[in-house]
């Protein structure tokens, strides 16, 4: 998003990114880039993509999101998709998109819990 409208918040080593309701393809690509840069800049270990505002997920969006999650893994991080609407979940599945390899949570709260306990487990000092 050239106008920088995506919001990136860092909480406890976790980046919270809110995806806008109806991003065009360029915005989706820019979002990916911004997210990866922010992960590196903040040395974040976890990423929450809040998609609760997103009304449509098509194959391009799904591909970019699962790619982003893969890239975050390569950078040593963990991604959780939070807040997918029921209508979007039904449509995405029927379309045949495989977002199933990505961790998901009902909302940002639960995504945060998931990441905090997952990261705690890997980082606890004896």
């Amino acid at each position, binding site marked *: 998003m050239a106008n920088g409208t995506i919001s990136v918040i860092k909480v406890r080593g976790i980046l919270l990114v809110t995806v806008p309701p109806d*991003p*065009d*393809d360029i915005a989706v690509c820019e979002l990916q880039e911004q997210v990866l840069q922010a992960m590196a800049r903040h040395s974040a270990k976890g990423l929450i993509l809040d998609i609760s505002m997103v009304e449509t997920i*098509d194959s391009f969006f799904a*591909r970019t999101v699962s790619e982003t999650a893969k890239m975050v893994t390569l950078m040593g991080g963990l991604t959780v998709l939070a807040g997918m*609407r029921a*209508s*979007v979940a039904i449509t995405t599945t029927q379309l*045949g998109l495989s977002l199933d390899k990505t961790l998901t949570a009902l909302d940002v709260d639960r995504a945060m819990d998931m990441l905090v306990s997952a990261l705690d487990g890997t980082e606890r000092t004896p």
Partner: protein
Amino acid sequence: MSSPYEGEMAIDTEYDIVMARKAVRTAAVALGFGVTDVTRIVTAASELTRNIYLYAGSGIMRWHPVSGNFAGLELVFEDQGPGIADMTRAMQPGFSSGNGLGMGLPGSKRLMDEMDIVSEIGKGTSVRIRKWLRR
């Protein structure tokens, strides 16, 4: 075009895919489709307009209400691009001539109640999809 139920839109740029989604959402909501069907129709429109943009460069989307046993919404996606050489393969989930997931055409068919494609090599492609309102 003052009616939200029908219209025509040129698909020339990547941004037109967003505009198409908005127009289709407005039409589907106005016709009384529920949120899940609206999402299905908008998603199919997103796939098919992106195919126009990617493979034909430009084309048009038309939409209008239809009536049969039920009322419904019909959308037509037309281009004068290269056409689809092997329709059977194009309709197979996972087939992509580019770096796509190969889900656009088969997925749209599953999301809608009806889909017909007419394509001729060197002439272009026309995809017609329909969704019926059930009450």
